[in-house]
């Protein structure tokens, strides 16, 4: 069964460093998402991506964040200068098409900023 994969499973970084979280969505899917979950809090929407551009982003997704689909298979989330409060579980999700509303989630990357 096709699934969304994410790497790494756990990333530890120093405050101020750049991190790139990687996702491989399901191959024929068209819509891509990043969510995050700070420990003990809700899963929060960060950004949606369709047709090679951001279609919606939340207030959390400020200038420090960017997304890219560099090669037609990977979907990356970059945080330019990490802060302590960026420590969270980051989930990637993908969805097949406009009338297919189920999102499939990856296992997540746990980001720890020291």
């Amino acid at each position: 069964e096709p699934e969304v994969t994410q790497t790494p499973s756990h990333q530890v970084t120093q405050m101020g460093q750049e991190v790139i979280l990687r996702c491989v969505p399901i191959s024929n899917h068209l819509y891509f998402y990043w969510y995050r979950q700070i420990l003990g809090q809700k899963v929060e929407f960060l950004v949606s991506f369709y047709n090679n551009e951001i279609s919606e982003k939340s207030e959390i997704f400020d200038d420090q964040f960017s997304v890219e689909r560099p090669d037609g298979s990977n979907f990356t989330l970059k945080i330019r200068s990490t802060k302590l409060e960026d420590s969270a579980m980051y989930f990637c999700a993908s969805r097949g098409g406009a009338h297919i509303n189920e999102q499939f989630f990856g296992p997540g990357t746990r980001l720890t900023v020291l």
Partner: protein
Amino acid sequence: AQSVSQHNHHVILSEAASLELGCNYSYGGTVNLFWYVQYPGQHLQLLLKYFSGDPLVKGIKGFEAEFIKSKFSFNLRKPSVQWSDTAEYFCAASLSSNTGKLIFGQGTTLQVKP
């Protein structure tokens, strides 16, 4: 503002007990509603979804949920839980008209005692 709330944060049941987890949403338009489950160490997985039609939807593993529009609710039920249902359960909603972003509830941790 769009929001989803789950009433129960931590539920402890014995095997064979019946389960009902509450979920309410606040949205102005036509909503799609979902319940996701996260077993320990695993991905978020879709349990069931409601888009339109019969307000009583059946999902995997014997779960069902009822959409009550007048109450803005989408409660999850299972007549008889098993130890293997121990997991975290998330209610989520998206507007039919938007990018498909999901707004999640806080999650409910279900612990089933054998």
